[in-house]
């Protein structure tokens, strides 16, 4: 009465595969990553390599330990997780931040749940939040951009010292991120306009020539990668669009009400990890909803939370928290916002028989 081993149709396939999806995302991240590595020099390169390598090593160890085929390593998901984590870390962070973060992301965030596809939370963001809460000092020490080959940039050996020996940053070498700076200055009673007029340059922020984590500096290159992914239909447009729109809209409204307290939308768009989050992190398929309406809600929720936490919360950067919180809501969104099935109304009841009219297309020729 059963049929072990008898294959059912369909027998054709469009040749897509998980590892192609993951590699596409990595490729889309490459321009922004390369630019970030160039900006922050050898310590950043060390950090990036270390994070990706330890993510892959953790994945391999877990697969072995769980008795799963090591070939799963090739699906590229661990590499992507490590890569995203590296992009969200301060570029000159010490080695144990990189390794600890990767182990946490892959080990607890992903493999504990059964590996790829099973994790409810985005592993990279989980690791980032855990690191931020456990090691606030290291996670908020931002190096100023010192491009490879420029005068003050650390050489290869100095880079190793910074990453592995914890050589302290010289005073002139560290700075605050735009968001952090604004937050500090606001608490000192300065007005947002004055602060931004003094220190913030939109162009520099867009190009990426500012302090920040490795991947959040060059907005333009991130946009380029994201647009390519959208064009290849690797990611859906709903989440980035609704997330960015939500932030822009809230920022614009608040700016209208009190420009002295709240900076405008473009400032939010160009600073911090918003674009990286909207294009590459919130769009992680495993932890985001599957229906179009669900994705719109998910994106809008992320956007609202990013704005609220950035503006009123105690952390200057909020993408990771917002994404995690909406990840937690994803099962509920998936349950209540489903696509409308053919022949049924939005609530899943069959359409009425016989009294269906369609104003656009009546029977017969128009």
């Amino acid at each position: 009465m059963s049929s072990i081993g008898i294959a059912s149709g369909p027998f054709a396939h469009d040749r897509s595969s998980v590892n192609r999806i993951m590699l596409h995302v990595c490729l889309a991240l490459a321009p922004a990553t390369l630019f970030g590595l160039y900006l922050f020099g050898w310590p950043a390169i060390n950090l990036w390599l270390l994070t990706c390598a330890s993510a892959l090593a953790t994945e391999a160890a877990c697969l072995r330990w769980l008795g799963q085929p090591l070939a799963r390593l090739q699906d590229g998901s661990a590499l992507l997780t490590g890569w995203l984590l590296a992009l969200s870390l301060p570029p000159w962070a010490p080695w144990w931040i990189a390794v600890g973060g990767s182990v946490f992301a892959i080990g607890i965030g992903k493999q504990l749940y059964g590996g790829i596809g099973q994790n409810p939370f985005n592993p990279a963001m989980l690791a980032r939040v855990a690191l931020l809460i456990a090691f606030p000092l290291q996670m908020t020490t931002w190096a100023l951009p010192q491009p490879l080959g420029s005068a003050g940039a650390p050489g290869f050996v100095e880079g190793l010292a910074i990453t592995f020996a914890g050589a302290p940053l010289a005073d002139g070498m560290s700075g605050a991120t735009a968001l952090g700076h604004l937050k500090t200055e606001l608490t000192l009673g300065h007005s947002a306009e004055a602060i931004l007029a003094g220190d913030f340059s939109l162009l520099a922020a867009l190009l990426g020539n500012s302090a920040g984590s490795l991947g959040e500096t060059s907005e333009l290159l991130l946009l380029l990668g994201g647009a390519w992914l959208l064009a290849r239909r690797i990611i859906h447009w709903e989440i980035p669009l609704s997330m960015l729109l939500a932030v822009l809209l809230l920022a614009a409204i608040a700016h209208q009400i009190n420009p002295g307290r709240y900076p405008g939308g473009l400032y939010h768009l160009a600073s911090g990890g918003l674009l990286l989050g909207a294009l590459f992190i919130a769009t992680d398929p495993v932890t985001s909803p599957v229906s179009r309406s669900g994705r719109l809600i998910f994106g809008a929720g992320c956007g609202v939370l990013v704005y609220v936490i950035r503006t009123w919360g105690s952390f200057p950067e909020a993408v990771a928290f917002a994404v995690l919180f909406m990840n937690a809501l994803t099962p509920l969104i998936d349950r209540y916002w489903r696509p409308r099935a053919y022949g049924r109304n939005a609530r899943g009841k069959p359409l009425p028989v016989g009294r269906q009219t369609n104003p656009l297309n009546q029977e017969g020729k128009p």
Partner: protein
Amino acid sequence: MLMATLALAVMGLLLGSGLGLAARKFAVSDDNPLLKEIEGLMPGSQCGQCGFPGCGPAASALVEGQAAVTCCPPGGVALAEKLAELLGVTLDAGQMSAPLLARIDAAQCTGCTRCYRACPTDAIVGASGQIHSVLRDACTGCARCQEACPEDCVALVTQAPTLDTWRWSKPQAV
């Protein structure tokens, strides 16, 4: 101290009498609707394969937790699943064995009609002196006919799959 004792006593008195009143106002009759529901689900052939004297006693044993939800072979997996849901237990479908059906060996059958009379569901057809045969749709595999047969020609066998009973298997787990 006195005040504390008094206050608590008064509170207890007030709340207690309030609850008493409420209990009367919101009284719910206490007979178990579950039993009836389960009795309704059972096949009712009183075949006794569950080890209880009939479907009624089996139902009460189920309600009391004395019998497993998989105890009824004629009801099959479908009944077991329903019972499991009603009784709030988890069902291990692997516990259910494939249903058995009676088959009469035509070569040995003498047409004595004993099996015919013993069958609780009239699943055996044939007149006296003729070879009997079993109706697949009505047989519960209760083995009464096997016990009744003097020639020992009734066997209980699993069904061979046909195109109608063949099912797709679950794909191997990923």
